[in-house]
């Protein structure tokens, strides 16, 4: 139970959602710090509490799901099972996505699934690739540990932790942005691929954007494009990805204000300060970089799913969680039915809809 929170996350990670918003059906946070963010241990406890009184078989590894006469045949670590319906709820973060770049052999390569903390690293510089939630959090932590971090920045989503004193996810939640439905969205494919916003759950409730990282001493470079003659080459388009993120953030915050009917100016957010001459090239054979940490996204693992419902790009074919095979369902994927679908808070509405559909088919 809660296996990925327990075993597949780095030590310092906390939820991006504040405690008051991390809700499961009939189970809400009732501790002393509603505005705080749960550590991984607390998430595991929270889920364990929720599961009390529910019949759950834990410690069972499902190694295969395939079609059977009237439903599905499962192979598990505790023997075979058959089921008329199956809900896939293994999440979207099972495997780290790593671009097919060949690095010099002395460079140590890690993904967020291998990384537990800066103590895992030697003292050499670290190139963190990717500036979404994972990349910015790890860049900050590693830089603070005394190792020089270079952060390769592609397209990203910038958000302040707080807007007008409230958690930015409060605004997402209350304004209805999180309720935007999958079937009313212009470009669903894009919405489902949207990287996690640059947020961190810290006790200080502080913003973790590129300006924060620059102030810590992190060096920003453009998107990691290519390795040529042992050198990492970075895109010269850093300024534009930062402009895009600044513009989109402002547009979102303005929409929040319009929704709230507030006109008083909000706290000024400085545009992303892009280095005037970001490096385009780093020689990976010079010893400056010892480790490359790929924070380039995650994808679900469907290698055990022997039902033809995965497209050539590895995406599950489903309509709002109703998978393209009778009796097969999915939960907990980005933008499954709503923008909130991949947050703990989003599971209740999605599960109700899926269970209604599932029950009607039984």
């Amino acid at each position, binding site marked *: 139970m809660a296996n990925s929170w327990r075993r597949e996350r780095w030590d310092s990670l906390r939820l991006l959602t504040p405690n008051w918003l991390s809700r499961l059906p009939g189970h809400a946070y009732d501790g002393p710090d509603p505005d705080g963010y749960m550590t991984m241990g607390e998430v595991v406890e929270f889920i364990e509490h929720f599961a009390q009184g529910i019949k759950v078989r834990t410690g069972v590894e499902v190694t295969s799901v395939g079609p059977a006469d009237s439903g599905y045949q499962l192979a598990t670590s505790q023997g075979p099972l058959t089921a008329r319906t199956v809900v896939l709820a293994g999440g979207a973060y099972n495997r780290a996505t790593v671009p097919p770049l060949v690095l010099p052999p002395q460079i140590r390569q890690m993904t967020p699934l291998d990384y537990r903390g800066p103590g895992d690293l030697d003292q050499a510089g670290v190139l963190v690739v990717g500036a979404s939630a994972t990349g910015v959090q790890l860049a900050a932590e590693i830089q603070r540990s005394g190792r020089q971090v270079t952060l390769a920045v592609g397209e990203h989503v910038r958000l302040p932790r707080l807007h007008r004193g409230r958690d930015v996810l409060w605004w997402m939640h209350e304004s209805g942005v999180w309720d935007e439905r999958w079937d009313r969205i212009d470009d669903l494919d894009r919405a489902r691929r949207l990287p996690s916003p640059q947020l961190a759950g810290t006790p200080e409730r502080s913003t973790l954007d590129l300006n924060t990282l620059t102030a810590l001493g992190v060096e920003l470079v453009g*998107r990691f494009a290519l390795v040529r003659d042992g050198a990492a080459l970075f895109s*010269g*388009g850093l300024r*534009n990805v930062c*402009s*895009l993120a600044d*513009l989109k953030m402002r*547009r979102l915050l303005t929409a929040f204000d319009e929704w709230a009917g507030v006109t008083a100016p909000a706290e000024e957010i400085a545009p992303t300060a892009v280095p005037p*001459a970001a490096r385009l090239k780093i020689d990976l054979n010079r010893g400056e970089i010892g480790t490359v940490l790929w924070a380039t996204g995650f994808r679900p693992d469907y290698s055990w799913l022997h039902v033809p419902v995965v497209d050539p790009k590895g995406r599950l074919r489903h309509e709002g969680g109703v998978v393209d095979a009778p009796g097969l369902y999915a939960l907990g994927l980005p933008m499954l039915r709503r923008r909130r679908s991949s947050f703990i808070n989003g599971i209740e509405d999605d599960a109700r809809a899926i269970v209604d559909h599932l029950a009607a088919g039984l």
Partner: protein
Amino acid sequence: MTTVDNGVNVQALLDAREALRSAPEAAQFTWRASAKWQNGVHSTATVEKFFGLGQEQTHKSESVFSADHPEVFAAADQGITPIEYLLVGLASCLTAGVASVAQNRGIQLRSVESTVEGAHDIRGILGVDSDVRNGYNDIKVTFNIDADASKEEIEALVAQSQKRSAVYDALTNPTNITVEVA
């Protein structure tokens, strides 16, 4: 209601996007130019045919470009410098992008002007200093846009045009180049 018309057939582009989603092979284009040495550092390049949508295509007419170097390079200056062609390509690509994105977003443009400046240390090409690169160190594009839109909307147009620009990508990201002798 006034109709926004920047002269871009956005519907055709959106239709093409939809059609090519299921036919990626038709999306494979090959652009071509052929160049001929004239004399000195003067050459002419001709562009007429290209391949795309599964077949050979031809521009309405052939275009011929003269490339040379200026007199301060001790050349005859019978055309612009090759590296200036990159600026021409970048400016026209971004401008086309601004017009297309504006059309798609329902923004009427009245004028779009830009200047492009490329900072170039010619010690690289002259072999004076091996630490100096041959190409541009920095390119700066400045747009002046008059449109029925807020400053932020105009900034978003310009940002989106960079995001979808072929020439911007070709200049900001490395590209493998093979040069052979036939």
